[in-house]
């Protein structure tokens, strides 16, 4: 081995070692936030944070179905009891009285700090008189039985007021004392894990303990028929991690075995086979390391893309190995094919750059991974492989297959007319369908299986927690100021709801008023002597027994001295869960969220609420926001794709120096893209951004084929070799990508099916469209 060869090998090994060191320290993430924008609006940032570690991200929705209502109710109670004993869960709610009793107890004990009605005026004799008259009226209603018990303590009806305040909020139906879906077919539970949403190992453990508790619970009735349904962000993250892991591993493994078998048959040498995988392996390591350095972490989906590199990166070694003619050296072969190979790689990089520029970290990671991987793969092919290749190596299969392939290729141009027809048809079809081409939904980007999304929507409807569309978000430096801001916003909302702009709203300050408000309420409570005097006056002429309301006086007096409430006082109630989901700590302060119901005029509402005086309040329309996000996404990708295509054309023009040749190279690619899109739409696929990326990859991979077809060759044998090597490369690419089409993960599936179809079409179309120009050359040589 020469000195320069030693340097090459040494540098390569050092690079690999460095990559491994970087990778060993890399955090692999599988949460969805990588597919949310990296530079979101402040409102979007709140959503992203919530998705990562908010209370919402810790919720697990549980359904039990199959069987009679009583048996399901019993199963729900038993499951809840078991889960409540476990450390993994902060709360487990199934509608049983236990939680409600604690909530009621909390509201009862603190009613004079919590009730919005409290003011000095509220305890005047006139106001008390009106309250007592109302009480008499209520005593005639069926609520009387419940009212009698609390009346001596609470004649002004604060508890009822608080309960009513929460009553407008949707609640699931209840049967046999536990939550059920409207149709009574599913018992419902909601568990909140202690671990944060992004702690996937802990989430996985929590999900497992639910499944275990369910299967171990001695249930009544026909338990075999009972089925456990789980949903929620934790499940999604865990599932998508699992399916990405499984799919990425499974498909990588299958692809590797298939490709390796094929190559072994071609090369008839284990050593060369292993050498052939070196560019890919080095590229994958470099890709992961580059993403890790560039982004600080690597998303699981990015890793899944390693499998795509097998298709693309293995090509380089194939181009080299299969084109080494007998009795020549790898270096000589490289000298011949290197300009074309280099141009092919540059073309691919232009294609992938579109993704690198994306403002969505997930896509940008994929771009960086592919670019770094390809550069390293091609460099290893160029500099490392020739040193390691056994001397005198040649692929006999190339020579054997060459004549047959050459014959097919020579005849291919006859299909030119049908091809043009097919392309025209596909283009026409796409134009006709243009309105319905794109999936209109941000969900099409999410790595969550459709069936899981459906189940989630179903359970959410059941539980009465439909996705909120409008939210007011207020931000402040600390928790208490955020509550004060929420109270101000709530006061404005109250006025607006009287004007009919909305039906109602929820606020964290309902569960925990700001200290200022609590203090003001406490100060408004009358002294016992004053209250007694007012009561006596108010009671005149009413049939209440003397001294009946002494407990009321006692409670008000106690409330006047009680310590003010903070978050800890709510611990153990379901109100704490509510509060935590509406009042969240952020990196730079606190945010309070006020979900709105029945918004009639969002534009007017936004104008009213976002006045300069309340600068910290923002109206967030989640639907609009996510539609906006999706449109940005699509516009961005389309924009960069066109840019990528433009740069590719420019690159080709500079390299090939002939507009005619640029056209020859790009025509089959354009045809392949149009027909691939046509086939996908025809088979009922709504195109997502990932299909668009797939088409970009088709251009990147296909350009290699077109360039090699277009390359001027020295001899007929050389040309035949080239074409055979393209067929081999194509088969490996189709194996690598085509397998992904079987994945359940939408992103892998979309890219797999698109590239699988597109790669074959690129090769075939290149043969049909480009060979004509060189056909005579082939015959001549």
């Amino acid at each position: 081995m020469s000195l320069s060869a030693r340097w090459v090998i040494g540098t390569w090994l050092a690079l690999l070692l460095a990559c491994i060191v970087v990778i060993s320290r890399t955090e692999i993430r599988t949460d969805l936030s990588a597919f949310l924008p990296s530079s979101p609006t402040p409102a979007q940032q709140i959503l992203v944070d919530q998705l990562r570690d908010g209370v919402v991200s810790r919720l697990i929705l549980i359904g039990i179905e199959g069987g009679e209502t009583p048996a399901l109710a019993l199963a729900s109670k038993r499951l809840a009891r078991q889960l409540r004993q476990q450390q993994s869960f902060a709360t487990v709610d199934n509608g049983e009285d236990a939680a409600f009793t604690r909530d009621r107890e909390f509201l009862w004990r603190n009613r004079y700090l919590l009730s919005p009605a409290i003011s000095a005026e509220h305890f005047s004799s006139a106001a008390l008189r009106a309250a007592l008259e109302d009480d008499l009226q209520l005593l005639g209603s069926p609520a009387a039985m419940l009212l009698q018990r609390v009346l001596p303590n609470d004649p002004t009806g604060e508890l009822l007021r608080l309960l009513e305040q929460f009553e407008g909020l949707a609640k699931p139906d209840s049967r046999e004392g536990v939550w059920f879906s409207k149709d009574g077919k599913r018992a419902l539970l909601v568990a909140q894990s202690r671990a944060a949403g992004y702690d996937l190992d802990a989430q996985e453990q929590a999900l497992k303990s639910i499944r275990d508790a369910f299967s171990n619970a001695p249930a009544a009735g026909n338990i075999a028929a009972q089925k456990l349904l789980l949903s929620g962000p934790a499940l999604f993250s865990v599932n998508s991690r699992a399916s990405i892991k499984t799919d990425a591993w499974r498909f990588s493994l299958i692809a590797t075995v298939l490709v390796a078998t094929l190559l072994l048959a071609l090369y008839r040498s284990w050593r060369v086979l292993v050498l052939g995988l070196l560019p890919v392996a080095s590229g994958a390591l470099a890709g992961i390391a580059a993403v890790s350095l560039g982004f600080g972490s690597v998303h699981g989906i990015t890793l899944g893309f390693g499998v795509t590199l097998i298709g693309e990166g293995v090509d380089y070694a194939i181009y080299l190995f299969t084109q080494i003619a007998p009795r020549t050296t790898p270096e000589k072969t490289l000298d011949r094919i290197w300009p074309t190979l280099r141009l092919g790689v540059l073309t691919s990089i232009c294609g992938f750059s579109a993704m690198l520029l994306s403002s969505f970290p997930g896509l940008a990671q994929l771009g960086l991974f592919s670019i770094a991987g390809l550069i390293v793969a091609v460099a290893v092919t160029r500099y490392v492989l020739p040193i390691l290749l056994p001397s005198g190596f040649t692929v006999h299969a190339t020579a054997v297959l060459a004549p047959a392939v050459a014959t097919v290729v020579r005849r291919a141009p006859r299909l030119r007319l049908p091809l043009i027809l097919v392309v025209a048809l596909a283009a026409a079809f796409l134009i006709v369908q243009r309105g319905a081409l794109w999936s209109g939904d941000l969900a099409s980007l999410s790595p969550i299986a459709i069936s899981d999304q459906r189940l989630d929507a179903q359970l959410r409807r059941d539980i009465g927690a439909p996705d909120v569309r409008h939210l007011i978000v207020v931000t402040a430096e600390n928790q208490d100021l955020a509550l004060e801001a929420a109270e101000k916003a709530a006061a404005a909302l109250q006025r607006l709801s009287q004007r009919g702009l909305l039906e109602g709203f929820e606020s964290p300050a309902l569960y925990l008023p700001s200290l200022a408000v609590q203090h003001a309420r406490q100060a408004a409570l009358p002294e016992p002597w004053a209250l007694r005097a007012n009561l006596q006056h108010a009671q005149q002429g009413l049939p209440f027994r003397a001294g009946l309301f002494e407990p009321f006086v006692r409670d008000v007096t106690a409330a006047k001295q009680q310590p003010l409430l903070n978050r800890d006082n709510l611990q153990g109630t379901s109100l704490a869960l509510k509060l935590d989901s509406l009042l969240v700590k952020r990196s730079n302060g606190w945010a309070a969220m006020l979900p709105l119901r029945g918004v009639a005029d969002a534009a007017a509402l936004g104008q009213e609420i976002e006045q300069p005086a309340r600068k910290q309040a923002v109206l967030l329309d989640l639907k609009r926001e996510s539609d906006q996000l999706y449109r940005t996404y699509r516009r961005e990708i389309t924009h960069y794709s066109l840019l990528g295509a433009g740069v590719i054309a420019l690159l080709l023009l500079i390299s090939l120096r002939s507009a005619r040749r640029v056209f020859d190279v790009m025509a089959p690619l354009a045809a392949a893209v149009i027909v691939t899109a046509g086939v996908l739409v025809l088979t009922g696929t709504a195109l997502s951004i990932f299909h668009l990326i797939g088409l970009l990859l088709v251009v990147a991979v296909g350009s290699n084929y077109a360039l090699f077809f277009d390359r001027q060759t020295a001899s007929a044998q050389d040309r035949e070799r080239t074409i055979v090597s393209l067929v081999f490369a194509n088969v490996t690419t189709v194996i690598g990508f085509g397998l992904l089409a079987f994945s359940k993960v939408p992103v892998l599936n979309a890219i797999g099916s698109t590239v699988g179809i597109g790669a074959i079409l690129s090769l075939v179309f290149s043969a049909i469209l480009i060979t004509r120009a060189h056909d005579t050359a082939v015959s001549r040589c």
Partner: protein
Amino acid sequence: MHRVAGALIIAAFGAALAAAAAAQAAPAATWGIDELMQNLARVKIAKAKFVERKYLSMLNAPLEFSGTLIYTAPGRLEKHTLLPKPESLVLDHDTLTLENKARNQRRTLRLQDYPVIWAFVESIRSTLAGDMQTLTRFYRTSLEGGEDQWRLSLTPAEPKMQSMVSEIRIGGSRNRIRTIEIIETEGNRSVMTITEDES
């Protein structure tokens, strides 16, 4: 129609007390609770006036309410209180709506959220509907008297209800209900007297 209307009964949701029924007629061998229920079930619509008096330990004097009752088989019951203040209460399947037009208030409860109120309204509604199955889900029943003068006694089956209500007595004649008396555990009781609506 008047006759039918008069034959029906309605009932109250609130509390109540009332007249007891005399149980003198010797029961015919063929007449029993099943026959009573069948008779009651035949009534499809009924309208009547009521007067309800509530005797509560926390009050010095009884409260008196009066108004009209309308029953539509099998699940709808309306109680329109006219005095002392107008207020209406509508029970339809599993929802209970309270409406106070004077104060522009309207509140809807789902019975399943309030088991005690549910048990309570079923004592009246299930009796009116002749729905023995629902009635026995909430109460143990016993019947005294004969077809012309009967008294149905309901004692709560569930502990929660038992802690609040000790007995509900419904008195009537043939397929009309005349009185509903509710005796609560803490000495409170209410009596509702129902008379045919002459209008």
